[in-house]
């Protein structure tokens, strides 16, 4: 039973890295393994839940530089012809 949880933990972690577009460099691999080690010290079930919460902070997955969607609004108005 415990084996399944471990397998799930690794597969989920790896899936998250791939989805996040994180290249598995030596540093990234080490950081990931370190995080898993830390989490497994407490509880394997909890590790499963916490890994995706902690991983982005460790690897800066979510640090996408978001372009500016829109410039600041400079409110103007549209004129209508007076038909009267």
């Amino acid at each position: 039973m415990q084996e399944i949880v471990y397998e799930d933990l690794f597969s989920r972690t790896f899936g998250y890295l791939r989805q996040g577009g994180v290249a598995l460099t030596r540093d990234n691999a080490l950081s990931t393994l370190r995080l898993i080690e830390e989490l497994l010290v407490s509880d394997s079930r909890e590790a499963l839940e916490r890994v995706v919460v902690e991983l982005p902070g460790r690897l800066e997955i979510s640090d996408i530089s978001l372009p500016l969607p829109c410039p600041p609004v400079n409110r103007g108005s549209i004129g209508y012809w007076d038909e009267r």
Partner: protein
Amino acid sequence: MTAETSEGADSSPKQDRSPPAPWRTRARLRRIVLTLLVTGQCGIATYGMIRVLPYHGGDPLEISLAVVFGLLFFGISVGSWFGIYGFIVRLSGGDRLSLVHRHPPDSLKEVPLTRTAVVMPIYHEPIDRTFAGLRAVYRSLEATGCLEHFDFFILSDSRDPEVWLSEQTAWYHLCKELGADGRLFYRRRLLNMNYKSGNIADFFRRWGRNYTYTLVLDADSLMTGETIVQMVRLMQVEPSVGILQTCPALVNARSMFARTQQFANHLFGPIFTAGLAALQLGEAAYWGHNAVLRNEPFMRHCGLRRLPGWGLFGGAIMSHDFVEAAYMARGGYEVWLEPGLGGSYEESPPTLVEDLTRDKRWAKGNLQHLWLIFFAGKIKMAHRIAFLNGVMSYLASPLWLTFLVLSTVEATRLVLWPINYFPAQYSPFPVWPEWRPELAIALASSTFFLLFLPKFLAVIDVLLHRKTAGFGGILRLPVSLALEVLVSALLAPIRMLAHTRYVMEALFNLNLRWAGQNRNSETGWRPTLINQLPGTAIAFCWAGFAFWLDVQFFLWSLPVVIPLILAVPTSILLGRVRLGQILKKLGLLCVPEEEQSCDLLDDMQSSPIARARVRRLTAFQEAVIDPALNKLHQALGRRHHGGARHEFLHKLRRLCLQEGPAALTNRELNILARDRESLNWLHQAAWQADQDSYWAAFYTAGLK
């Protein structure tokens, strides 16, 4: 984005309007000549028709026939003279009054540019094509070295979360690819009121004051940077110009239908648009895209009130462009159509069904202009005529159908009813009905001559300008021309019936669904059958009746009947991409942009727009699963407040987590996907969900 303001944009032309512009006198003269030619020609033809009719217009039926014929002939004659005018203008090296002639590109080099927005309103468009097109325009402007004066806006009205989430993702990747952070913007309206014109008005209300000019692009538009820069400079040196419109050429056609349209556009377009521009001069129409607008007067004069009438003539104006041009002119500004500006492109609908679907919207929009013709104050006569021209382009179809019905009644009367020797009331003189086939043939021949004359002039124009190579060469050009004529002849009766239906639907104000266009797929059998089968049935009935009535009348009916009977296979066949590509390989229906490469098109097709990392995920699933995209959509989302809304969102989230997005309606997905907190919650909950949950299937999606 720099905070440069639109200084100097407020220079209303009214201040320096004292001497009338020289083009106005010339425009008046040209229009008078056209009116005399057309009315004279039309009068002769109508008289000829009266002579052809057995009772020579002696009863209400024949009077009606002559009137309807006169109206139809008027339209044909106007079109023909536009072509002839254009041919003469091009033969003489272009119109000396046009802006491009008055300010050749070399004289504009030192003219400073100013802040200009490039806006692309979109609504459920094919994302890859749309964004690739915008990328090509961006790069082309970048290559001119003038990019710093331009900002780009994608103005989305899309409602389907699958579409707008994909748009957001594509925008993000495009910004990264182009390094366009702070220059390429994306805005989605949550409330898309008043269709496309409302979308653009919303842009003007928010950011219009930041820019002097706005270049409006359609989702399928392409424009070269050089042309855009030239247009802005022309607007700079001509402060009285409010709208500068290019003549977009059709490109990128794949199906046979689109290739035929594209060929006709490239071959006949130059002389027709040259003629149109020569007659309109500074009182031209705006076609809604591939045009530069002067922001300050546009915002001041071009607000579109809802029509105050009933039925069709109540509510939002649907075809806004002609109206905006008329309002701009009413505000004292000029509107120019400039055929001399190259590097402006758009695409044709791929199939007949799509083409007719677009016509359905346009028919209703154009018929609404009837209200403006009669009730809008201070609109210039040239623009009222432009409205009328638009209305007639659709009313011509019911008129043609009426003509066919009246002809059938006339033929029936001659065969089945006893001869009436006294068709005119109170006349003591008997009239013997006489049938003059030689005059009928002469009249039909002269009508065909008028229809085909501009086409032959267009071919001569190509020969004179030594452009035959662009159309496949001197041997293939006539074959392509014959193909185009054949396709036009096959499509004309189909369009007649369809347009008649649209006009009736519009006049009776039947509901109209405003939908995005299918810009690149083939047509299936089902929509084709729904579209064309009623016409085919009518044609069979009419042909059967004509054959039973009189064989000669049956033969006269064949040019209308055969295309209608063949409407379904014709429509399917013309929509086939394979057939279009075979013809392309044979060098038929070719256009210069295909024969000589076009940098803009090559760039557009160079590489696909980066979007999803895992193709089999839907945009919503991706927004939940993908960590980076989840952050992106969160950032573009909103934070919702209020207890009741929160409760509703919580309920939706839980349902989505347990059963997946399929358990939610599109409206619910829309609400969820634009809520920042829900996206964050779903992302974490999905990745923490149990192995047997709906979302567990996607953990490994990234592994494949």
